[in-house]
């Protein structure tokens, strides 16, 4: 298995105010698939994403990705892991406002030794014509495409998307999801999308549901659709 999570636990707070964000969650995923994780607020899906992305560490349990044991990594090792293996796309894009589109991508390209061509990636997500624009000069959908390009430039093994269409209208959302689909095909990148939106689950190879910090279901999607066909 490419991703292997066993009995993952992550608690916040102590005593009565203790929150069990992950409470024995287990999950196995193959490389190169598109996975959608669904769950209500507070179910632990963002915590799971943080663990997969090396933004936080488990209190207990094991997480292995691509054969590397991510759980138990020290801060410095987690930095190296994020640097080479993980790409992030966030709901609010998180672009650096003082850098242009091209520079926002370049800033990641500068720290990776397996960088793809900036121009090719920009063309792939159709933002080449905006390369010298600043984020504040772009629409939400355009910014999210820049965010995807920035995540892809280092050719990550895993692309983590947190509510990536949450701030977009349906037209922009469809376009962004189409690019995600193409990225998966073109680069064979493992893509994990966390969302509230059940409709997005339609494009997943597998649909994972989380409840109370545990994986309540992990099923293959028998009716996988193309992004174009989703009713967003």
């Amino acid at each position, binding site marked *: 298995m490419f991703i292997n999570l066993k009995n993952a636990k992550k608690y916040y707070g102590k005593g009565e105010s203790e929150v069990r964000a992950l409470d024995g969650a287990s999950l196995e995923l193959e490389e190169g698939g598109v996975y959608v994780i669904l769950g209500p607020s507070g179910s632990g899906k963002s915590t799971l994403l943080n663990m997969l992305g090396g933004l*936080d560490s488990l209190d207990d349990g094991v997480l292995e990705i691509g054969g590397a044991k991510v759980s138990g990594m020290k801060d410095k090792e987690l930095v190296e892991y994020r640097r080479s293996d993980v790409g992030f796309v966030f709901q609010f894009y998180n672009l650096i406002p003082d850098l242009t589109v091209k520079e926002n991508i370049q800033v990641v390209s500068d720290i990776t030794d397996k960088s793809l061509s900036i121009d090719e990636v920009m063309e792939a997500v159709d933002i080449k014509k905006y390369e010298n624009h600043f984020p504040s000069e772009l629409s939400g959908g355009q910014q999210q495409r820049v965010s995807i390009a920035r995540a892809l430039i280092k050719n990550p093994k895993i692309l983590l998307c947190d509510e990536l269409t949450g701030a977009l209208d349906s037209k922009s959302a469809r376009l962004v999801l189409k690019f995600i689909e193409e990225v998966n095909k073109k680069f064979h990148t493992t893509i994990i999308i966390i969302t509230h939106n059940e409709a997005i689950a339609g494009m997943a190879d597998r649909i994972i549901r989380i409840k109370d910090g545990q994986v309540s279901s992990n099923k293959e999607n028998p009716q996988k659709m193309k992004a174009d066909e989703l009713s967003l």
Partner: protein
Amino acid sequence: MTLNKRYTRNFKNNISFYICVCILTILVVILYLDFDAAAVKMNDSLDIFRERFCVEDAQFSVLNEIDDEEIKRLEEKYDILLEKQRYIDYIIEDGNYELRILSVPKKINLYVLSTGDVEKDAPCISVEKGKILLNEGLATGNEIKDGDIIRVDDNEFEFISSFERPDYLFPIKEVTDTYALKAEFGVGLVSDEDFERLADKAKESNKLKEYYVIKYNSDNKNEVRKEINDKFHMLSYLKADTNTRVGTPKREITQTSNLMNVAIIVLVIFISVIIAAVIGRRIKGDRRQIGILIALGYKKKALSRHYAVYGLVSGLAGTLLGVILAFILSDKLIGFLFFKIEPIPTGYNISLVNVVLSVLFPTFVYTFSVYRSARKVMKSDVITMISGRSGRKGTSKLRMEKSSLKASTKYKLRQIIGKPGRSIIVVLGLGIGGMLYSFCLTAIDSMDSYVKHTVDQIGTFNYEYFLKNPELGKPNDGNAILGVSYEVKGREDIMMLLGIDSPDMINFTDPDGNKLDFEKDRFYITSMASLAFDKEKGDTITIVDPITLDEYSITVTDIVKNDSQAAIYCFRENAAEILGFDTGLTGGELPYNVIMSEKALDIDEAKLMKTISKQSLADQINEVKIGMENVTGAIDVFAIIICVAVVYMMVNVLITESTPSVSMLKVLGYRNKEINSIVLNVYHLLVPIALVLSLLLGFFSVKAVFAINVSEYKTYLETLIYPLSILKMSVLIIASYVLSLFLLRGKAGKVDLVESLKDNRE
């Protein structure tokens, strides 16, 4: 109000920032209270000292002694005070210094003990037998303590206290001296009986000097001078205004007061505004919370008041601590400020008005600035505030499309250009901190250059011997000079008219180094005189004989390069004419009263009034240079505090304002070191600009001070700074800059990479 619980948390979370604010505020208050108030206080105390202790209006010497009866008659006739005063100079071999024992004054130039108070204590007019008083500069400079024995010409005196006289607050040996060598020359008082004993012996070796001091009560100066000249044949007359010993303290204090009034107020306002701006900026980072609180129903006014408390607390904490430290440090700082003159014995109470002002002004500026920033933030609509989209202005749109610079370099450039307020504060903070240091270095280097080179440019002579009475013809050794002091009409200054036969011992060149012809009936002024009296080639100068009050006008033929003496050169014949000397009575022989020589001459002490050596000019400047070097350490501390604190605050603000970007860089896999190299190093590009600015500010401030001092000290110092000093200054500024970044190195690492992402919405 529950909201007030945020105060403690906010101050605790940003403790280093608020400590920085406090340190700068403390510095501002100390500077204002101690320096500005001291200058005002010194000014008042000096006026009181001069009036209560009856400082002379003028001093003069006469050919025929004025006896006590005549003195009484003149006093009654003209409503004046007139007193004969005497002194004897001794070399104190035990201590390697020169001591002038003065007769104890009874009417004019009365003294006060250093432990006393010029505003409260009655003037002293006697000294106990066998005891000696010394001026404080000499006693301190030679570490003389109470009970020490001072051996004066085989007589032993017990040192009991320091004292000050209003006519020796600037204790120079000759009135032509420029700076006081406090450890090498000073004055002392012994009892009348002891003085008479010393005087009897001194008379034999012609070491006893006599002169008269006068205090006018009516506007009849010219009548008095005329009668004294007619009856007793005045040899010299020196008004207090032109007497360096009496005039310098007043001018020094006035100049310092003026400088303090401008420089300190500017510095105080500058630092207060910087701090206010920085605290204000931090409030802008709270815009989302402000939006939420408004959405919850809080009134904008109440919130503005809530935020204003941050400014209020920062201002009060800094200013109150500053006031306490100002009281503790006042004596040391006052001594530091007026190190050239003797301390005036008085209490230095910092005025209540100044204390109130020093607390209120910064506190008000900080509070108002924060209040204004909060109001400004609240001008956005609530939704925008909550979404975090407000306050995005200031991002530079400098695209640099064709530039091959790295993205991180472009980011730095945009941070600098897009937030000009922040960048200007960094440049000014480093620039002003550096200026304090470059001011000292420039002044020290200029003085060093004077000591090593400038003084030698005057000419090849090394000594000028001033004779008591003129002689005829030429001396056996050296060159004959007829030298007379004249007052310059319209100015409270004196200038020497030097009649010479040839300029062979003088560097007779113009300021550009071109050799000048020395011609009869022509008058040449030194470059020093040109600067001091603002006269150029072709201008007319009117000089006044201080004894007869006769006036003469001369036209300046050319300027002679000499930055050390204010003088007019002419043929000895022309000087004699101006003096009214009739050569017909001397068979054509011209008089001289000064001998200029390259080597030391053995001249009878009885004939000699004073000796000026070229080395002494250099020594006096060197003394000031040493004084300046001693205070440079303290200046360095001020400079470093300002540089470190300002950079620390601004980089702190930069990191806070860049938190979303820093967080994102972390998520993207940037190492802390790499993030620091982008975020902390933003202002690297500004350091060279700040360096140049501080260098220029320091250099031109010194130039301005030297220009002001030209008329005061009759010495013009060429302003310069050595390359080594530029290097030292650069090291200090860069080290301060690096230190503040070093202190902040963990700041970016503390940015929470998960939490901050939640707040980052474009």
